[in-house]
Structure formats: structure tokens, C-alpha cells
């Protein structure tokens, strides 16, 4: 194989080179775009959890409370015992865990008095997942630190409705809390939203005294937020369901299913689409290379006549195709990236399942939207670039191999005598 010859063939036979490069580039661009889109749907589905550092949320569905007076637990978030929490620590692949106790507190005359209703969440301060991240949302005052008691962070919307500001005292089921900070819940963090955030131990003390949380024992909680090994997520979820009977486990996959439609099938669509375009590309490139070989029949006859062996000729043609494939692959990645960038401007609506929505149906606040608008986080990973390049080179090389037989059939004596 001779690089000057390869270069000349590629540069001086522009139409032929352009055809092969374009065929591969178009296929690779589709491959890159559909896979980037599939990854983006997955990314969008992970976003509602990722925004507060979580891979898995664990809750337990139970019965509707008999009475809505005082502190109670939503039917989608009944008690998870301290022993069950402890048992999770034995599961491999769980990197970090945060627990919370979310209560609906009806301190008015009856439950329909939404003016006296408050969602209070006990958090473990100092952690960076789940509602413990509330310190990061501060817009005024200070946060809750480990060891604090009797203090609260108030959501800015709720604070505005109630006229509460930092330094005020706010009562929950008769317990006074000093408001040390005001937080603004990000729009996509609905799942971790609350009207009031208080230290977990304070929330547990309220629950212990609450007549409508009858089975409550010290240390119990009703929400667990996990960071887990993404490669073993399904296995971890199965172990969680064994450790906590009747657990309701939410992960990115839950959101994918909730989005439904093309999004839910995006991975399958990407795989099938990729295979289809690669096969199409293979056919186009094989046809083009076969045409090239016919066009270069005389040249191949000369090669053979002047002493090129079959392997010499194969190497030459495969190198030409390899370089065309690489250029086509790189161009395809570029085009695919542009398509993906355009798709990245889209937003999709990720529905939030009722059981992970902390707000009761009768309470509609600014943060209680039931779907999250998430921008498609389109990006071209190095893995996808690698796959695209390998695919383009594979198409070219395979095409060249498929056409080698036709080279063997060329007899120099016939070609050179009658050309």
C-alpha cells in the first residue's frame, strides 16, 4: 500500500470519494442523532431525581388516614421502620442514603381548611441528596445543620402566602420552630418540595405524639433517598423490595415509563434505527465500491500485470476505503452532533406519579405542578463517538471485503488487451 497513491485516488477521483463519504456520513449522522436522542430521553427521565442527587426513592403505600386532624402521613408515604432502614445498609451498591419524614399537618378545625394545612418534612442536614439538599435552596437566612433542633426553613411561596420571614416563630402541631431561613424550591424539585423543613428528630418527636400516626415508633421515617451504583440498579431495586415489603421504589426507569410513547421506546428505536441505517449504508457502500472496482478494472489489471499480488491490491483498496470511512464517520458525527444540538432545544414533559408528589390533591401551589418540563440533555458521549467511528470503519472495511472476490475475477490479459 502506498500512501501517495491512496491520497491521489481519494483527491483526484472526487466524485467517487464524495459518494462513499456521503453515504457513510449520512448513516453515521442518523446513528449518532438517534442514539443521542435516546440518551437524552434517559437523561431527561433522570433529571427529576438527579436534581437532588438521587437515583432511587423508596416509599411505602398504605391506607388513607382515618382522620386528618393534626400530623398524619400521606397514604403513599406510610411508615418505614428504623429496622428496615438498617437492613438497607447491607445491600451492596448503595453509595449514600438519606431518610426523611414527610407529614401533612392539619392544625385547623378540619382537613378542608387548607389555610391551616402545612407539609412539614424532617430532614437529615449535612447530606446532599433528597430534601436534605434544602440548605442549597436558601435565599434568605441560614440553613439547618447537624445537631440543630427547634428551627425551620420555610418555602418562599408558602412564606409569602403566610407572611412569614426569617426570625419569626412558626408552630407545627403546637411545637414552636424558629424560622432561620427561606428557601426557593427549584421548579424541577417538586418531589423534594415541602412547605417547611425541620430537623428529622423534631419531625420524629411530632410523629411520636401524633394521634393519627398510631403505629409510629422512634426512629421510623417514611422516605428514603439513595445514591446507588447505576450499573446494578435493577438488582439493587430487587433487594430493596425484599428488605422493605410493599415498598414503592422510584427510579429513572419509572419516569421513562411515565413519559411513555417514543421516549419509552427510544432505546429500542435507537438500536433498530442504528442497525437499519448501518445496513443501508453497507449496501450503498458495497454498491459504490463494486462500481469503483468496475471503473478501475483496467487499473487493477495494470497492478496485476506489473507485479502486484492480490494482497497488495486488497491492502491498497481497503486503505482507500478505510480512510473514506473515517472521513465519512467523522463528518457523520459532526452532522449528527448538529442534529442533536437542534433536538436539544426541545423540552419534554415528565409526569410525576401521584405517590411521589408530596402535595395533596386539594392543594395546588406554584410548586405543585404535576408534570416537570425538562430540556432534553443532548450530548455526544465519547462512547457514542467511538461506536460511530468503529461502525463507519466497519462498514467500509466490510464493504471492501465483500467486493474482494470481484477483484480476483479480473484477468490482466483480458483487461489490457481489449480496453
Amino acid at each position, binding site marked *: 500500500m502506498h500512501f501517495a*497513491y491512496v491520497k491521489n485516488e481519494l483527491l483526484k477521483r472526487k466524485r467517487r470519494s464524495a459518494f462513499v463519504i456521503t453515504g457513510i456520513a449520512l448513516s453515521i449522522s442518523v446513528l449518532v442523532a438517534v442514539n443521542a436522542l435516546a440518551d437524552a430521553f434517559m437523561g431527561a427521565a433522570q433529571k427529576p431525581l438527579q436534581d437532588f442527587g438521587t437515583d432511587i426513592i423508596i416509599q411505602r403505600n398504605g391506607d388513607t388516614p382515618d382522620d386528618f386532624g393534626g400530623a398524619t402521613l400521606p397514604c403513599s408515604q406510610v411508615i418505614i421502620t428504623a429496622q428496615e432502614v438498617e437492613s438497607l445498609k447491607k445491600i451492596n451498591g448503595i453509595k449514600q442514603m438519606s431518610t426523611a419524614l414527610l407529614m401533612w399537618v392539619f392544625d385547623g378545625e378540619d382537613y378542608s381548611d387548607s389555610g391551616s394545612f402545612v407539609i412539614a418534612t424532617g430532614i437529615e442536614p449535612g447530606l446532599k441528596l433528597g430534601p436534605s439538599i434544602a440548605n442549597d435552596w436558601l435565599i434568605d437566612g441560614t440553613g439547618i445543620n447537624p445537631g440543630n433542633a427547634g428551627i425551620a426553613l420555610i418555602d418562599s411561596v408558602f412564606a409569602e402566602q403566610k407572611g412569614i420571614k426569617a426570625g419569626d416563630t412558626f408552630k407545627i402541631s403546637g411545637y414552636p420552630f424558629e424560622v432561620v431561613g427561606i428557601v426557593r424550591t427549584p421548579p424541577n424539585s417538586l418531589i423534594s418540595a415541602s412547605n417547611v423543613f425541620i430537623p428529622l428528630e423534631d419531625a420524629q418527636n411530632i410523629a411520636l405524639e401524633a394521634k393519627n400516626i398510631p403505629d409510629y415508633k422512634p426512629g421510623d421515617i417514611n422516605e428514603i433517598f439513595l445514591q446507588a451504583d447505576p450499573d446494578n440498579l435493577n438488582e439493587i431495586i430487587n433487594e430493596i423490595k425484599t428488605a422493605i415489603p410493599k415498598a414503592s421504589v422510584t427510579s429513572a426507569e419509572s419516569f421513562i415509563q411515565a413519559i411513555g410513547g417514543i421516549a419509552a421506546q427510544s432505546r429500542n428505536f435507537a438500536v433498530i434505527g442504528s442497525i437499519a441505517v448501518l445496513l443501508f449504508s453497507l449496501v450503498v457502500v458495497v454498491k459504490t465500491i463494486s462500481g469503483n472496482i468496475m471503473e478501475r478494472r483496467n487499473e487493477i489489471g*495494470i497492478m496485476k500485470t506489473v507485479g502486484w499480488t492480490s494482497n497488495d491490491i486488497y491492502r491498497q483498496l481497503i486503505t482507500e476505503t478505510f480512510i473514506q470511512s473515517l472521513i465519512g464517520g467523522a463528518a457523520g458525527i459532526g452532522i449528527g452532533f448538529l442534529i442533536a444540538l437542534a433536538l436539544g432545544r426541545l423540552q419534554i414533559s415528565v409526569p410525576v406519579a401521584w405517590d411521589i408528589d408530596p402535595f395533596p390533591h386539594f392543594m395546588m401551589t406554584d410548586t405543585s405542578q404535576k408534570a416537570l418540563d425538562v430540556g432534553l440533555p443532548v450530548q455526544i458521549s465519547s462512547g457514542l463517538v467511538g461506536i460511530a467511528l468503529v461502525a463507519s470503519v466497519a462498514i467500509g472495511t466490510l464493504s471492501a471485503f465483500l467486493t474482494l472476490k470481484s477483484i480476483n475475477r479480473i484477468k490482466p490479459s483480458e483487461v489490457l488487451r481489449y480496453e
Partner: protein
Amino acid sequence: MSNVILSCEGLTKRYENLLVIDNISLNCAQGELLAIGGQSGSGKSTLLSLLGGLEYSDEGEIYLEGQPLSKMNEDELALLRREKVGFVFQSFNLIPTLTALENVEFPLFPIKSAKKDMEERAKKLLEVVGLKDRLHHLPAKLSGGEKQRVAIARALINNPKIVFADEPTGNLDSAAGEEIFQLIKRLNHEMSVTFLLVTHDENLFDKADRIIRIKDGRLV
């Protein structure tokens, strides 16, 4: 005949039922300029293809420097041609995307070593054939006579034992044809390269060392 470089015995070739070469035997000596003449369709180009190892005979044997060709596969024949044989064709058969210099180097492109030496030799050969100032011209920019000179230089790049030339003046006007033949004659004399020339140009026969005529596939 002393110093036989090429010989064949009982050479026969058929295309389907058509007998093209019929039991030909001949010898060619080292340094000889041998012309093979005959009418169109007489089988002279087929004989050249067989002797040059471009195709296999149905019967008989060819020996190039004592090596029987019929036992070699296509790649072995290609390597033999690369080492010992040069070809010149009526239609020049240059690679259109390569310059004159690259066309001369073309037979040795697959050999990785000694690229510098190869280039020097190619330049020298183009100088010998009178194309010192056409090294970087593409074939499309050369006249017919110049193209054939490039083809002759290419045939000599591997320092061959024998050069097969199939109607080398066939596509040239008479003046250019004469120049090419004189060049062949000069190279044959100066470089002691054996030339086996197929032609139907009667004017060239007188200038060859020996003439063989062929009719209906037989020597006459």
C-alpha cells in the same frame, strides 16, 4: 542458442473451442530484440500474454530463466513479473491519477523499503527516455509518444530480464512510433535488456534481431 532466457515447448491455448495458440515452441536469448509479427487475430498478443505469465496455457510449458511458469499460482506469477519482467502496451496503460514519476515507480509501490532509491532510479529512467522535465506531469498532460516513454521507463524500473511490448507503436503516428522503436533499440543495446516485441508494423521487422511470424496460432 546460447543464454536462453525464455523458452516454451508445445504451447497450446484454446478459448472454448477456438484454438488460438497451436503447439508453439521457441527460445529467446539474453539481450535479444525479438519481434513477433502476424495479422490481427493471428494469436500474437495471446502468445505474449502466455509468455509473460499473464495467463495459463492449456498445454505445453514456459520457462523463464529456467523456472516453469505453469506450476506457479497467480500471486507467484505476479511476484515473478515484479522481479524479472516488464510490460509495455499499445494503450500505454498509465495510472491517470499518478504523475509520470509515480507511474514509473508504480510496480514497486508495494515494496516498503528503499523508497528513496526507487525514486532516484525512476528519475534516472525518465531522464534516459527523455522526459527529465516531465516528472510531475499527469498522463493527461503528456503526448502519446511521451506516455509510451513513461510506460517504457515503468517497464524498466525493476531492472527486468525481459520486457514484453504489445504493439508499442500501435497508437502513435509514424514519427513518434519510430522514436519509440529507436528508444527500445537503444535500451536493448545499452542496458542489455531482452525485448520481445509484438507488432504488425512491417517497417519495424528489419530493425529487430530476429523475427517470428505467426498465423492461425502457429509459427510460420
